[in-house]
């Protein structure tokens, strides 16, 4: 199966600009993500990471600039049919009226890609992978935040995407499961050469899985490059974001 599995796609963003009600959120972003790359976007809360992802998967239209998937504009007809994409929403965005199994299998059921028995098997397999074995019959309302997030990841994996977006995949998970998720992102990446774009605050996750990291700050890219390059970036804002920790240090707290 892995031989004929779809290959990742290349994504290019050119001068992407977006404002909401005259309030600029993204200021002319320029970057490219190569096939099969794990690209991590970090940045403080409110810096525009989720807005950026929504543009990349076509939920929002840019004010200016282009998003190209394998050279084709992301919004153009047929792109969604030709390339399989998936997004793990920050909130999970599970369908509340469907149970876990139906949520995870939704893509296959609605597009009639497999017979029901086969769908049930795939769903069970993906749920087990995420440590959710036997939860098919539960409703999203009965799950914890972290479980919802994992169901959302299972739902995205079932699509076998060529391009996958994760919005804060580990934000509500305990460290053990966070590591599992990180490994799963990498495994998917190796097995099918998918292109993964991960938005996260989690520095361990970012430096653990990224081929390249971009640091977003107030709608601009502050630094972009390999983890080592970003780590070595002299920009004080970058260092501040990467080095912030909880240890109380009386010297820095006095002006």
């Amino acid at each position: 199966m892995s031989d004929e599995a779809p290959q990742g796609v290349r994504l290019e963003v050119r001068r992407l600009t977006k404002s909401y009600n005259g309030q600029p959120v993204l200021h002319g972003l320029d970057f490219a993500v190569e096939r099969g790359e794990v690209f991590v976007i970090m940045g403080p809360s409110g810096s525009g990471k989720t807005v950026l992802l929504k543009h990349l998967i076509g939920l929002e239209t840019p004010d200016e600039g282009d998003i190209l998937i394998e050279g084709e504009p992301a919004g153009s007809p047929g792109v969604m049919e030709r390339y399989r994409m998936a997004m793990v929403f920050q909130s999970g965005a599970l369908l509340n009226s469907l149970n876990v199994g139906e949520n995870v299998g939704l893509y296959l059921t609605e597009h009639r890609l497999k017979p029901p028995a086969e769908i049930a098997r795939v769903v069970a397999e993906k749920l087990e992978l995420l440590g959710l074995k036997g939860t098919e019959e539960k409703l999203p309302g009965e799950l914890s935040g972290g479980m919802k997030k994992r169901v959302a990841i299972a739902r995205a994996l079932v699509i076998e995407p060529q391009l996958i977006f994760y919005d804060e995949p580990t934000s509500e998970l305990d460290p053990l499961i966070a590591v599992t998720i990180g490994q799963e992102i990498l495994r998917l990446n190796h097995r099918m050469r998918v292109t993964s774009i991960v938005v996260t605050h989690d520095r361990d996750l970012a430096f653990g899985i990224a081929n390249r990291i971009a640091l977003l700050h107030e709608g601009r890219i502050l630094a972009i490059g390999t983890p080592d390059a970003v780590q070595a970036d002299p920009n004080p804002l970058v260092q501040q974001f990467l080095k912030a920790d909880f240890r109380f240090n009386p010297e820095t707290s006095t002006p």
Partner: protein
Amino acid sequence: MFQNIGEIALLFGRTLKALPQTRRQFRKVLEQLFEIGNASLLMACVLSLFIGGVLALQTGPVMSERGLQSFIGQIVGLSLCRELAPVMMAVLIAGRVGSAMAAEIGSMKVYQELDALQTMNINPIHYLVLPRMLAISLGLPLLVIFAILVGWVGGALVCVFNAQIAVSFDGYMKSLGNGIDVLDVVNGLIKSFAFAVVIGTVSCHQGLATIGGPRGIGRSVTKAVVNSIVLILLLDYVLTRLLMHLDK
């Protein structure tokens, strides 16, 4: 409300274009139909029994006094099938089913479920709007037939048991049978089908257009019900006028 008419018409057009998808969504149509029945049958029964009854009560004594008893059945029957059953059932369904549609789709919008569908390349018109539209367009006319029958019985009961009217059951039924044509029932069914389309489109549109949080959902529900009822009453006049041509 009226600035939305264009969008509502667009949604209706898109739903028509999605009609070939009906077979794939068949199970959801049945589910929706079941919900409509569940939400409205008992109410419809009570409502029409009393509407039929009050019609007989209002017209009966006056007509009996003037020796026109033999027309009571016809009056009650005609008013029910041409006017009251379609309009009252449409209002009932707008309140019970239209509101639920707007709330359900609205909360899916607010909680990003529609976004999730879109990223899975699932068209919300096929997945959500089409089954609801089909179910209501089928369900409302069926409900109206039921309401007409129950309403006739309500009228009959009052005629038989009210001393001022004192029309026998047979007499009432004969008047009903002589005075009412199949076309009169068809007339009411055409109306109710049109009302169903209005309720379905307006409510689904409001749901899809929901913005903001829980308060946005509340606003959508109110608008869906109020706009549906206003449109039903306006359309009722227009349709009554147009359908007069059917009589000759």
